C-alpha cells in the first residue's frame, strides 16, 4: 500500500539514528547497514501495525533490536572473538592518560554486555527516555536504569577513567568539535 507521506518522512528521518544504533550493536558498518535494511523491509511490510501518533523512532528501534537479537546473536560469537583479539592489543598501553580516543572508546563499548550497551546507547546517545528504552528492550524501567548505571561504571573502568581530568578536557573538546560541526 502506498505510504502516508508523513509516515514515509518519519521513517526516513529515523534512518540516521537507526544506523548509529545498529553500528553500536554490530560493531561493523556493513553488517549494521544490512540490519537496517532488513529492519526497514520488515517495518514497511508491517506498517499497518504502526499506530499513528506514536513514536516512529521507538517503533523502528524495537523492530531492529528484536531482529538483531534473534538473527544476529548466532553470528556474534565470531565477532566477539575478533573483538577480543583487538581489545587485547589495545590493552597493552593503559598508560595513555590524557586522552581517550574514539577507537578506544568504541573498543570499551564493545566489551560491555549487550544488555548494558544497548541501554546506554538508547538513553545516552539516541535520546530516548528511560521509559521508551524500557519499551524498546521489553523490560522494566528500573532494569534500564541499573543497566545504564552499570554500563557507565564499567566503561569508566575499561577506560581507566577516575576523574574528568583523565579525559584531557582539551582533547575531548577538540574531538567533539572535529566530529560535530564544520
Amino acid at each position: 500500500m502506498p505510504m502516508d507521506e508523513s509516515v514515509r518522512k518519519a521513517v526516513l528521518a529515523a534512518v540516521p539514528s537507526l544506523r548509529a544504533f545498529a553500528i553500536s550493536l554490530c560493531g561493523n558498518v556493513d553488517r549494521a547497514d544490512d540490519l537496517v535494511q532488513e529492519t526497514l523491509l520488515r517495518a514497511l511490510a508491517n506498517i499497518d501495525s504502526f499506530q499513528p501518533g506514536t513514536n516512529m523512532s521507538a517503533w523502528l528501534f524495537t523492530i531492529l533490536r528484536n531482529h538483531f537479537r534473534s538473527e544476529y546473536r548466532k553470528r556474534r560469537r565470531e565477532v566477539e572473538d575478533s573483538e577480543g583479539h583487538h581489545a587485547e592489543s589495545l590493552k597493552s598501553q593503559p598508560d595513555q592518560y590524557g586522552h581517550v580516543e574514539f577507537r578506544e572508546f568504541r573498543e570499551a563499548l564493545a566489551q560491555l554486555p549487550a544488555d548494558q550497551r544497548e541501554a546506554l546507547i538508547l538513553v545516552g546517545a539516541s535520546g530516548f527516555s528511560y521509559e521508551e528504552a524500557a519499551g524498546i528492550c521489553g523490560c522494566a524501567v528500573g532494569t534500564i536504569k541499573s543497566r545504564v548505571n552499570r554500563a557507565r561504571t564499567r566503561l569508566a573502568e575499561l577506560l581507566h577513567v577516575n576523574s574528568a581530568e583523565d579525559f584531557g578536557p582539551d582533547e575531548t573538546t577538540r574531538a567533539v568539535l572535529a566530529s560535530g560541526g564544520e
Partner: protein
Amino acid sequence: MEATATRSKKVNAKPAKLGRDVQARLGQQLRAMYDEVVNQGVPERFSDLINRLDSSGKKDSQ
C-alpha cells in the same frame, strides 16, 4: 533456545558511584561517536529502498 549464557563471573567490587564530571564526559564521548554516524544522513541505499517500496506499493518478497 534460551542460551542463557550465565557467566558465573561476578564483579566483586560494588559499583562505585561515578562523579558527575566523569558521567558527563562519558556521555559526551558517546554522543560524539554516535553523532558521527547520524551526521552522515540517509545513505542513498535506504532512501531508494523506501521510495521504491512506497511507489511500487508492494513488498517484493523473496
